[in-house]
């Protein structure tokens, strides 16, 4: 998908693909030279990996999520996209966990830098949810929006086609509705599907969001979506919006967090926090990396490697004299403050899209929405006392 794209009324027209023709959509994408990446069930969870056929999708599966727990289980036997989010996010394809940046070669006493060829592939990302599209938009801002562009990300980003899926069910750790990032994919996709599964019919309402998307769709048997189809699709998304397992009240949240830098909340979280880094690595917008330099046994070749890092590691804040954030308290505060408050100052958007991964995949089930609520309650209590004092004086 290109960075900017004018969506015309025509390309926004909605079509219907019958379930029996769904493979043809995948075939059409492959025929256009795209490698397909989509959801698959592996090791007891939904992961993103290469797919080629409908059978590769988690057909008939759904999931149950709560803080610190995730289970795949049987759902509607026919449903293709009945599973919500797993631990993977799409950033692994655009911003890989490990990337060699360059090598250096010693030749005749001189050192030559050998640039790393970034050879992006055409990737069709199948099944991207609205919150994940928002997460990509956030990453775009971070990695492409400033003076220094991440060229590897940029190259791959330009080769990505997004096939979104509107959520037909919200999980117990989902809160995209309160972050205004879902459950409906409204922008940033080439195609957006809504799966409609009825007793005697199984089909997808498809909206194309780009010329490329419309081109792909023209190679697949479709029929124009009828008013009834659109209403059903809408009703599904509306229902999902009402099912959110969590919510995050963002009203004045930034301000409240800034007023809570010394709150006892952080000590209380620190008692439970493992500082393992899981929340940051499952987060679809966390972008921090570390850079490591290597040399080899011959002394002839060196290389520089970039790896996903986390603000929960000690080395992340290591400077001369020691670690800036040695305590778990400081590290959790840094992460949550950045996600919900300083990110806005830095990039003009929230760093949180409400996907709930950090809640589900925290091994001890720390819940960012709950911590935010505690901070809110403390702030409000403080204000109440303040007002009371004023009144009595």
């Amino acid at each position, binding site marked *: 998908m290109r960075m900017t794209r004018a969506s015309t009324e025509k390309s926004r027209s909605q079509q219907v693909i019958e379930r029996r023709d769904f493979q043809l959509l995948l075939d059409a994408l492959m025929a256009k030279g795209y490698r397909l990446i989509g959801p698959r069930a592996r090791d007891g969870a939904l*992961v993103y990996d290469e797919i080629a056929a409908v059978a590769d999708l988690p057909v008939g599966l759904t999931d149950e999520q709560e803080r610190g727990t995730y289970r795949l289980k049987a759902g509607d036997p026919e449903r293709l996209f009945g599973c919500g989010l797993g631990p993977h996010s799409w950033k692994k394809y655009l911003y890989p966990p490990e990337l060699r940046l360059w090598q250096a070669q010693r030749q005749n006493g001189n050192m030559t830098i050998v640039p790393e060829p970034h050879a992006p592939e055409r990737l069709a990302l199948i099944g991207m949810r609205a919150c994940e599209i928002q997460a990509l938009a956030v990453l775009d801002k971070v990695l492409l929006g400033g003076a220094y562009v991440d060229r590897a990300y940029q190259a791959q980003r330009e080769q990505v086609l997004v096939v979104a899926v509107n959520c037909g069910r919200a999980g117990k750790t989902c809160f995209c509705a309160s972050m205004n990032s879902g459950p409906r994919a409204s922008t940033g996709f080439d195609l957006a599907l809504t799966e409609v599964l009825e007793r005697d019919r199984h089909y997808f309402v498809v909206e194309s969001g780009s010329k490329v998307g419309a081109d792909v769709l023209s190679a697949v048997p479709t029929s124009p979506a009828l008013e009834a189809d659109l209403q059903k699709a809408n009703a599904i998304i509306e229902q999902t919006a009402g099912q959110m397992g969590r919510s995050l009240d963002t009203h004045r949240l930034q301000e409240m967090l800034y007023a809570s830098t010394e709150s006892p909340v952080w000590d209380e979280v620190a008692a439970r926090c493992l500082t393992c880094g899981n929340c940051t690595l499952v987060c679809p917008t966390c972008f921090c990396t570390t850079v490591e330099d290597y040399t080899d046994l011959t002394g002839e070749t060196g290389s520089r490697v970039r790896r996903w890092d986390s603000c929960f590691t000690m080395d992340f804040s290591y400077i001369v004299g020691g670690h800036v954030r040695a305590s778990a308290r400081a590290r959790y505060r840094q992460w949550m403050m950045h996600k919900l408050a300083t990110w806005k100052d830095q990039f003009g958007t929230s760093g949180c899209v409400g996907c709930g991964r950090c809640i589900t995949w925290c091994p001890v089930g720390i819940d960012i929405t709950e911590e935010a609520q505690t901070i809110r309650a403390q702030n409000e209590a403080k204000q109440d006392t303040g007002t009371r004092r004023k009144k009595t004086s």
Partner: protein
Amino acid sequence: MQRKSRPKLAIWKFASCDGCQLSLLDCEDALLAVADAVEIAYFPEATRTVVKGPYDLSLVEGSITTQHDAERIHRVRRASKVLVTIGACATAGGIQALRNFKDVKTLTSLVYATPKYIETLSKSTPIADHVFVDFELRGCPINKAQLVEVIIAYLDGRKPNTPHYSVCMECKRRGTPCVMVAAGTPCLGPVTQAGCGALCPAYQRGCYGCFGPSESPNTRAISEQWKAMGKTPQELVQVFRTFNAYADAFRKESDVHEG
């Protein structure tokens, strides 16, 4: 070969199973390059040929369990410019440090037919308890790629890339779904130092803690979670008392549950 010198490497064994020094022989393709880059001067496991010391780089495997070894390690230190300890025995006392939680005389009488022949210290202790150690490489056994990295880093006078954060970092980078969350399998990964490449979780097993405590291990929080998963205090004692039983964080946590 651009490096000017070819430093002398010595490999020393104390109380251990030899697995860590075998990691060097197990380097396969890299082994010849290692032998090119350093002079393997003292390595009884591999060759009877001994080049006299002093040595530029000593790799020390094993823990101190006898009075004899407690004295020998000082001679090794004196003969070594840089001393690197390798493996859980050398860095934490090893599995044999389980004796540290019991009375050693009772143990020798249970294990040996003629306990009076046994001369041993009451505790198995890491090398750093006895002499100054320049660098500690963790693991039971160590990861051979990390060993080679430590040797290269020594050759180039740089810090080795051997992180102290949790196993979770490696798990997530390789895309393994968390076994604690997705399967309810107790895992020590969140409090264990990375380095193995998150091997066990990749095969749907919980981490056993082979690389010892991570840089900021919240062992209490992981214990609480394990309890919620049905582990008894006795089981928690056993979980923390394995290869790194005498590493500070694991020892203290196991003591808590012994009650």
